[in-house]
Structures are given as structure tokens and as C-alpha cells.
């Protein structure tokens, strides 16, 4: 065992949503916390089964949206009312209604960028190398299979017991993921 590379994780391959969710619930009951399900599509109810805390992404997007609104407002106001005052048809130098469209667009633009890049950043992506992807069988996680992954750094992790648990909960196969 000692000459082999360090164990990173164990994963069990499951056939369907119901068994993999039930397996995750069993693992949680056993006290395992560093578990994850890899699936070809988002599974409803998975957050509760593996214990995912709600993401802070909406707050990031709110912050970005407010920043966008302020940016649009300041841009229109400073450029057209302060730095280079435009007098058009006797209208006021600055009035909010005429500037709403631009403020709205910058709000949406900033929020959308925050939603996308915030999601990518919080997910730890882009990640161009992942030891899981070295396993040919794991590639079906983006096709038709469900993979329950237990990380070795979980304090309650015991390779033998975890392998047995995965088999007992209906895993079709269990594989070890090692660092190289």
C-alpha cells in the first residue's frame, strides 16, 4: 500500500437517481461529509441528500447589479451634466427618466457577468485537470450514470468500510482514485 500513490477518493457508480440519492443519504447517516454526486443533469433534492449549503451567488449578483446601476448613473450624469454639459432642446441638463434605459442596461450587464463568472469562480473552474477524469468509467457521469464520490480527506473516511457501504447501497462498481 505504501508504495502506491496517495488515495484521493473512492467512487461508486450507480444506475439511477433514486438509488444514488438513497446511497448518499445512507453515507450522510454514517457521518461522512465530504461526499458528492456527479450526474449528467441536476437532480432535484440532491442538495438535502449530500448537504449542499445555499450558494452566496445571488448576493454577489445583487452587488454587481447595484454597482452596474451606479456606474450607468454616474457615467451618464458626469459625462453629460458635468464634464461636457449638453443642452438639448431646452431640456434639463440632467433628468433621471431620460437616463433610465442606459442605467437599466448596465445593471443587467454587470449582473449577468457576475452570475456567470461568479458561478464559474465559486465552482473552482476552469479546472483543466481532475484526477476523477482519468477513470474511463467516470466519463459516463456526463452521459447516463451517477457517481457517488467520497473524498479521502473526510475525517470519518475508512477505505474498506466506504467500499462496503457503496456496494451495499447498490453501486454497480467501486473504484479508487489515486494521485499520480
Amino acid at each position, binding site marked *: 500500500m505504501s508504495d502506491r500513490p496517495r488515495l484521493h477518493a473512492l467512487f461508486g457508480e450507480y444506475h439511477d437517481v433514486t438509488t444514488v440519492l438513497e446511497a448518499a443519504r445512507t453515507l450522510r447517516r454514517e457521518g461522512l461529509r465530504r461526499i458528492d454526486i456527479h450526474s449528467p443533469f441536476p437532480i432535484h433534492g440532491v442538495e438535502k441528500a449530500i448537504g449542499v449549503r445555499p450558494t452566496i451567488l445571488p448576493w454577489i449578483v445583487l452587488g454587481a447589479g447595484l454597482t452596474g446601476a451606479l456606474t450607468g448613473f454616474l457615467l451618464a450624469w458626469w459625462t453629460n451634466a458635468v464634464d461636457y454639459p449638453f443642452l438639448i432642446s431646452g431640456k434639463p441638463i440632467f433628468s433621471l427618466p431620460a437616463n433610465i434605459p442606459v442605467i437599466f442596461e448596465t445593471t443587467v*450587464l454587470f449582473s449577468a457577468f457576475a452570475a456567470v463568472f461568479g458561478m464559474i469562480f465559486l465552482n473552482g473552474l476552469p479546472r483543466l485537470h481532475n484526477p476523477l477524469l482519468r477513470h474511463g468509467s467516470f466519463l459516463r457521469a456526463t452521459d447516463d450514470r451517477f457517481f457517488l464520490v467520497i473524498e479521502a480527506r473526510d475525517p470519518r473516511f475508512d477505505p474498506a468500510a466506504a467500499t462496503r457501504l457503496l456496494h451495499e447501497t447498490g453501486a454497480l462498481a467501486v473504484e479508487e482514485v489515486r494521485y499520480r
Partner: protein
Amino acid sequence: MTESTFATPAGVGIRGDSPEIDNTHDEPGSRAPLVTAHQDYASVTGAVCSLAERKTPRAWYVAFAFSSSLLLMLVVLLGYLFTTGVGVWGNNQPVAWAFPIVNFVFWVGIGHAGTLISAILFLFRQNWRTGINRFAEAMTIFAVMCAGLFPLIHVGRPWLAYWLFPYPNQMGMWPQFRSPLLWDVFAVSTYAMVSALFWYVGMIPDLATLRDRAKSKIAFIAYGILAIGWTGSSRHWHRFERAYLMLAALATPLVLSVHSVVSFDFAVAQLPGWHTTIFPPYFVAGAVFGGFAMVITLAVPARQLFGLRHIITIRHLENMNKILLTTSCIVGYAYGVEFFTAWYSGHHYEQFVFMNRPLGPYWPFFWCMVLFNVVVPHALWFKKIRTNPWAMLGVAMCVNMGMWLERFVIVVTSLHRDFLPSSWGMFKPTWVDIGMLAGSFGLFFTFFLLFCRFLPVVAMAEVKAVLPQAHDGHPGAPSGHGKSEAKGKEKEVDS
């Protein structure tokens, strides 16, 4: 159809070629299947990925050769325009906007159906959108590319088009933020960027599928980079779904704002025929109308050629036809209200413009517009037409032409005869005008064909998520929170 030309892999082709399955029934208590022919996860993956993985079919080369020739023609005409000047167009005084702005409004409107399908139907939990949203979004992006081209070349000196953006410059000047033309710059560029983000984010899980199935090194590296290391982790999916929901919630008011702002370009002007408050809702409804016609125009041949008839089912097409019919009624109503308002306003110039449209020199354009946009779509009241792909394709082609004519009527008939008869004039397009319009279709279809060849044309992850077996003991439930007593009921459907 000549299915042999488009050899689909074994197992997939059989299902794709099977006779059309009618899933258009509406019975309370039973859900019509969104995906027919008893698909499972693997067969959805297989059917969609095979389009990007197989050998390029000959028909694709033929289509690509045709559309890229049109694109080449556009490039040549652009070169001619840049070296010679806007005099190569038929634009004149008083019709200074003419074809470039007609084409701009036409293309930007087409894009709106893609965002409607991806964002608004998502917020309304219309699960049938999953079969069509990916290529409708792709259509949006390529349509916005075509749309963006025309105002840029219409500015006259396109090499100075960056003056449209607020940037500190040696002239010490800033753009005018109270002008709808500047709002347009912000609205259309925001729309282009947000649509591209929405499209790409939705595609990440499917790009990962293509990466994991890649046979060649080049495909593996290319899809690998685009998939940014997606592994389908549930923690990632959680944030992904949140991000997607927020993007949908942001894109919904955005898409309404974009065509409203486009309509402000007209409505804020003082010109009779343009200066009306009905324009924003009228333009948005027209955009959805024209856009759905284009989605049908693309979907009907695509599902036949690509063997996707079990994923883009007759029910999808029928639903789109219902939207087409609804928006046709809204557009027809708006045409009527414009005439009523002109009469009721007691405003001579306004009344003149609305008499000039059906009876003036551009009367064929007006009456063709009415025929294509208001009369023909009423065929869709009949279920036989709504569920017949070739009949609906005919209706959709009429609407495509009708919506282009509508913008022509709005732009040209209003401009060519305004207040003073001494400044009246006529607009005649030159061969460059017509060539550039045709060339913009080349631009659109070239990118669309590249997309169909190399990227996942159907949102596989989303389609899998609406299969009955995707729910933990709650088939069809929008958010099943697994209760153990109900589980296992549906899991053997696919085996």
C-alpha cells in the same frame, strides 16, 4: 426524407426514423411525453452527440458552400461599400434609413424568440423548451451579429464606429445619453453579450459530454477547454442552476427592453407614422412573432435532417405554432390600433401617412405585409396545419417575409412622404442593398451550420432532466423531494 444521406448511428437512427408520434393530446391528469420513443439518458446523448461526432454529411457541405458563398458576397460588397461610400446604396433624402435599418430591426427581432424560449419559458417552467432552446439561443446570437452589422455600416464611416461608445477622447466630447440612438448602442451590445453568456453557460455541461466522448486529440482538447473542467458535481450543479435562473430573470426584462429601445429610435422622433406610444409593445410582439417563425423555419428541416424527431417532437412545433398564432393576433391588432389612432387623433399628417401606406406608391408592400402577418397565420387555428411540419413551414416562411416587409413599411413609407410635399421622395433599393440583405442570410446560415456541425444542438442535460426517470420517485414533479415510499416506480422505464 433521404435519411440515407444523413446516416445516423445504429440504434439512434431507428428511433429518429420511426413514424411521427402524436404527443399533442391534452388530457387533464396525464402529461404528454416531451420526448417520444422511450428515450433513456444514453440514447439522448447518442442522438445529439452523434451529430457532432459523425463524418460530415454531404448535404452539410452543399448547404455550407451555398451559405458561405453568400457570406463571401457580403464581404465583397462591404469592401465595395467601404471603398466607395454609402452612395452605392439607394438611401437618399428623405429616406436616409432605408435598407440598413430595416435589416437591423428585422434581425434583432428574430433574435428575440431565442431569448424568449430560453428565459421567459424557463421562468414559466415550460419544460417543452428544453428540446429547442439551444439552437434557438444560437439563432439569437447569429441574428444579433447580423443585426449589429447594419447600423455599424450605416454610420457612413464604419472605421469611426467606436465613436458610439463613451470613451475619453482628444475631442473632449461624450455621446448624448438622452438619445435613443445611444440607448440602442447600450441595449444591443448588452443583449449580444448577455445572450452569448446565456448560450455558453447552458452549453458547458453538454460540452463536457462531448469532451468525455471525444475520440480524436483535437476534439478532446477543444471541447476540454470549452467545458472548463465540468464534471457534473452536484455542488457545481447547484450554483449552475442558480446562475441559470438569475440569467433567465435578467434576460427577460432585457429582451423586452431591447426591442422597446429599438422602437424608441422611431417613437422618439417627430415623424408621423413613427411618433406613437404603441411602438414598444408592438415591436416586442412583432419581434417574438418573427423570431418564432424563424425558429420553426430552422427546426422543421433540422429535426428531419438530424434525426431529432423524438426530441423536437410535434408537440414542440405545435406549441410554437400556438405562440405564432397568438403573436400574429397581437400584431394584427396593433396594425388596427395604429389606423384607429391616426383617425382619432385628428392629426392631418398622421392621417395622411396611414392613408399613404395602403394606397400610396408602396401599397404592394403594405398589402403583402397584411397578407403574410395577419391573414396567413390564421391557418394555424386548424390542428391539421399546426401539426403538419411542411404546412407550418409554409406559414413560417410567409411570416419571415411579412416581418421584413413590416419594417420596410414602417421605415420607408413614413420617411418618404412627411410634412412638406416639396421634400417628398421615393426610395429604390440598388443591387448592393439587395445583395447585402441576401449576404446577411449567408452570415447567419454559415454560423448556424458551423454550430450544427460542431456544438451540441440540443441541451442534452436539460432534456435528460425532463425524462420521467430523472425524478426521485416523482415522475413529472417539478421539484421532487424524494420520499422513500414512492421511489423506484419509474426507474425501470428505460431498460
